[in-house]
């Protein structure tokens, strides 16, 4: 009775919320129910809920082929490398932007560093093609000019871990440094002035004031990123590597694997099993990461 009078009281607000609720019901919650596909032998006649169960067969194939280990390892290692390199570069850029550059230059630099954030991964793919193409690529033009052998980057798997780390850092630099710049701007300047009067030079002030003061922000951002360690950046991997099987040993992540199993091999069962495996891994890690953030600073936890 109370419930219905509340519904009546909040009817306008509830109606305003309705489109959003329907949207997430349709595109998020209904697909969650679709995880049952991972345990089914899918056929189009039966559909998602009418197809027969097949227990853990889909998982068995995914794990026994060795693919599961390979793509999980790649996803986690890439994300760890991205977190370390991206954050270090972003922190360095933020410190230099704030402490070394005059305001006018700071704006110019920031504008330039932010540029890669605005382009799609398809365009980044075109840029990578310009740089690394075997016959005409800029990198090979330079190598040849220095009398060195051109490198066949698109046919050499071992180059890609380094390249992907660089590309990720390149695209995220401007975006990430804004966060750190905001944290530095918000710091108490009195400490700097006091340290300056006490004769601490700029390097000492960086080392003993700016960097320690950034730790809380770093820890939070890194922990939150660690929560997403099993989610690969599909756009990046797919546009850099595409369906170039020669590179898969070092570039295949869970997301590209699921995509390929679905679209190329049309293997609904196994791709759902791999997707479900990723969802569970992701869910557990994000809960753990959030728990760690809560322990560290309750107010900045996600929930």
């Amino acid at each position, binding site marked *: 009775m109370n419930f219905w009078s509340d519904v009546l009281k909040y009817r306008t607000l509830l109606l305003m*919320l309705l489109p959003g609720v329907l949207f997430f019901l349709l595109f998020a919650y209904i*697909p*969650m129910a*679709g995880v049952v596909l991972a345990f089914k032998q899918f056929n189009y006649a039966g559909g998602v809920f009418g197809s027969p169960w097949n227990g853990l067969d889909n998982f068995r194939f995914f794990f026994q082929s060795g693919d599961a280990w390979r793509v999980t390892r790649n996803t986690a290692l890439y994300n760890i490398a991205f977190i370390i390199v991206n954050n270090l*570069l972003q922190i360095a850029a933020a410190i230099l932007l704030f402490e070394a550059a005059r305001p006018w230059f700071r704006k110019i630099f920031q504008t330039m560093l932010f540029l890669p954030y*605005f382009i799609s991964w398809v365009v980044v793919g075109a840029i990578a093609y310009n740089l690394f193409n075997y016959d005409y690529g800029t990198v090979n033009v330079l190598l040849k000019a220095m009398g060195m052998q051109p490198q066949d980057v698109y046919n050499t798997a071992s180059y890609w871990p380094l390249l992907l780390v660089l590309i990720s850092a390149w695209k995220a630099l401007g975006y990430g440094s804004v966060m750190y710049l905001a944290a530095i701007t918000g710091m108490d300047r009195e400490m700097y002035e006091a340290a300056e009067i006490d004769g601490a030079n700029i390097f000492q002030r960086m080392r003993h004031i700016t960097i320690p003061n950034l730790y809380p922000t770093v820890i939070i951002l890194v922990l939150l990123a660690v929560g997403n360690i099993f989610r690969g950046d599909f756009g990046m991997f797919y546009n850099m590597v595409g369906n170039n099987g020669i590179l898969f040993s070092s570039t295949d992540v869970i997301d590209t694997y*699921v995509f390929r199993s679905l679209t190329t091999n049309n293997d*609904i069962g196994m791709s759902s099993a791999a997707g479900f495996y990723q969802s569970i891994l992701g869910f557990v890690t994000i809960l753990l990461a959030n728990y760690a953030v809560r322990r560290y600073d309750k107010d900045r936890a996600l929930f």
Partner: protein
Amino acid sequence: MPTQTQATTAASAGRGRSRALKGDLLLFQIIGYSVLTVLAAACLLPFLLVLSASLSSESSIIENGFQLFPTAFSGEAYRLLFTYPEQMLRAYGVTIGVTAIGTLLGLFLTSMTAYVLSRKDFKWRGSFSFFFFFTTLFSGGLVPWYLLVVNYLHLKDTLIVLIVPMLLNVFYIIVMKSFMNGIPEAIVESAKIDGAGDFLIYARLILPLAKPALATIGLFIALGYWNDWYNALLFISSKNLMPLQYYLYKMLGNMDGMRKALISSGAVVNTSLPTESLKMAMTVVAIGPILLAYPFIQRYFVQGLTIGSVKG
């Protein structure tokens, strides 16, 4: 007079120190400007390389590879793109239409949802917030979502599939909500006393006050639509519905198809196309509008990121 002596030594030591400090500062600034210049160059040069290649003659590319400045200037690639531009213009049209509709509708839904969640007197705001937030923690994955869109909603090869799945994003709702939390409650209260309904309060009072957040989130949504190729990759096979980024993706990967299309449309007669410069010219055409708008919109993104870092 020991105190005076102490004061003078301290003062002279202070002067010496400040000279040393200035030297350190200079060194620091030299390092700072050098590192930032290198980083900025790394961010800009790739764009210049693409631009230069798009303006180079095909034979100079084949001979010398891609260069920072064209060794032999040629507008042939652009001439080809613009002589029979139907396909490209259609891709532009799809992207502009999808971006305009998606941004307006997305902004409306994001702000309306965020407004209800920001109302402190709304009894179920906690439960509903969790309902939205949970979708960022757990998802059914690609396959069930794909089957839903294709087999149950039958949205393959429609414009709707390029717009609807990207309308709402939990992160944007949270940012918008935390911005609206900062709007004084007294405004809502007084409007209520005057008898205004909840929707009217949202539309007439809250939206104008939320303009900065609307501008920022609107630009994020618009950029998302402009740069989207993923939904097209999954769901679009009709040539008429390809958005710009996906058209570029197709062109980069499939110059043969491009060649056939150009030959059948009569743009070229021989089979040798300037494929390399054409790829780069198409890239320039696809990023052009973003690069032109970029200096003016960049600060809104910086604002948005800093609003977003405040937890709502």
